[in-house]
């Protein structure tokens, strides 16, 4: 079983809100590994495939997001999620704050 972990700073204007959360959980669900997310290095770790849990984390802007995964595609999963956050959830529209 592979394990992978990474952290990335989220610069999204209003944090891990509805639209970013939808994108993040959809992406996570595309991997077979167990994928988790935390807003602090020491956890608690939450299921990155559950939008209910991800939204409940209410992560604001400038939060460092931690990802970890275990499973066959763990490394790809962690890299893809970190990329999504680095790309600011592909929201280059000026209204990015509205999601």
């Amino acid at each position, binding site marked *: 079983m592979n394990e992978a972990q990474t952290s990335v700073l989220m610069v999204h204007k*209003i*944090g891990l*809100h*509805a*639209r970013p*959360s*939808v994108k993040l*959980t*959809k992406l996570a669900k595309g991997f077979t590994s167990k994928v988790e997310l935390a807003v602090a290095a020491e956890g608690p770790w939450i*299921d990155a495939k*559950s*939008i*209910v*849990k991800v*939204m*409940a984390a*209410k992560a*604001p802007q400038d939060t460092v997001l931690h990802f970890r995964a275990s499973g066959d595609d763990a490394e790809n999963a962690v890299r893809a999620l970190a990329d999504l956050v680095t790309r600011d959830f592909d929201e280059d*529209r*000026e*209204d990015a*704050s*509205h*999601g």
Partner: protein
Amino acid sequence: MPHTVELRGHPASPGVFCGPLVTVDAEQPVTRAGGSPDDERAALKTSIAQAIEELTRLAEQVDEESADIIGFQIAMLEDPELSQPAGDEIDCGTPADIAWKTAVEVQVADYEASDDEYFRARAADLRDLRDRVMRHLTGLGKSRLPGGAVLVGDDVTPTRFLETDWSGGGGIVLTGGSATSHVAMLARSRGVPMVIGVSGCKIAGHREALIDGASGEVTLSPDADALLRFEALSRQAEEAKKTDAEFAAKPARTADGEPVAVMINVASADELDAIDVATCDGIGLMRSEFLFHDGAALPGEDIQFTVYRRLLEWAEGRPVTIRTLDAGGDKPIAGLTVDGEANTFLGVRGIRLSFAREDVFRTQLRALARAAPHGTLKVMWPMITHPDELDRAAAIFDEELASLKAAGIECARPQLGMMVEVPAPAIAPDLFDAAEFFSIGSNDLTQYVAAAARDNVAVMALAEGVRPVIERLVAGLVKYGHARGIEVSICGDLAGDESAVNQLLKAGLRSLSVAPAVLGRIKAAVASVRLEA
């Protein structure tokens, strides 16, 4: 068949309709007769699936921005975590509807407790998806209200009104005097008859109803006599419609040949598809609130620009007056308007809210400045109370204009004018001479002059009673505007009231903006006015 019952309420939108009676919201919430835990689990699963299917279809029919909001609700519903606590409750013998409601309410409470207003605003989404699933669980079925029926309830929300297909006719009967005026406005612009403040409305056992929106009469289980009267009314309405259509097709002129501009009030760009631009002299009031359903999903500059440009292109050079966001009062927007104000109508609404949320205001102004080169745009500030507000709004507009120009983006400065709906400028228009035009919002002006809420049935008569006072204020404004070369028009309901047209024109008004549904009728009313005594 039950006996015929005659009810009387307050007219809110004219027109007649006869059709099946449908209860909008049962006063007693329907509860399920709970089955075995297995049955209840299955019922919840099915109801969630039905809700997802409905939302998926709805998402296909709306713009991208709204689709994102719906997409969020779908994602939440698809997440087993959401229904997990409900499942546990069901295993303990709780019926599915109660288990579901409790589970989602915990989530709602969690969002409401957030310090972050964006997360707080999500509570509304949770409530929305909760209710959608509840409707399936309790057998109330689709959230969409049926068209072609007389809807009876305490209240109908504007979004539910918009979701309803009114092409097959329909009518609305409301028991309360709750915040319904927004829906009444929509009903008038779509020509849907509506009666409010109908008390003692016991509809159990009745299957059919007849509504006469002009008189406020509602007949349950109409007998042969009532149906005959209805047919006569329908025929009259048909004939009036024909006459209206003839008048709508030509420019409005009084009996003695004085031209009068008759423009339309619109609440959403989609309404325009059904209107022939040649029948009006432009858009006298575009209410931009309909772009702003939700504070957490505010429309961006590009989306607003696209909508505004579409309005201007539709108008083919005729003037288009767009009012900047007029939220607050009876038009709250979760996450944007101020919560918990003691008196919303006297609080942070209209331009006051725009100053409080300058980020939102600036985005709208940029979109307007960019749209301006595409037609004859006029921008109107709502709720102007003090002359300084005119200067402040114009200064912000000019800043955004300068920044667009600096960035090399095509833009222009439209005429900047104001609504006259607060008594202050109506009493002393000379203090507000920085405005490039005045447009009288007679609805708010009336309720502020009468100190009587327009949605409170108990004091409605007072608001109707101050009409001579309003007419005097209108006359004063027109006189001042004429002397100073400031255009004065009226876009409130008074303009769309046939019985007021004579007075308004005699007061000197030559520009009326009305609901599209009464365009022809008002032009016909104009044609019957003789200005020269």
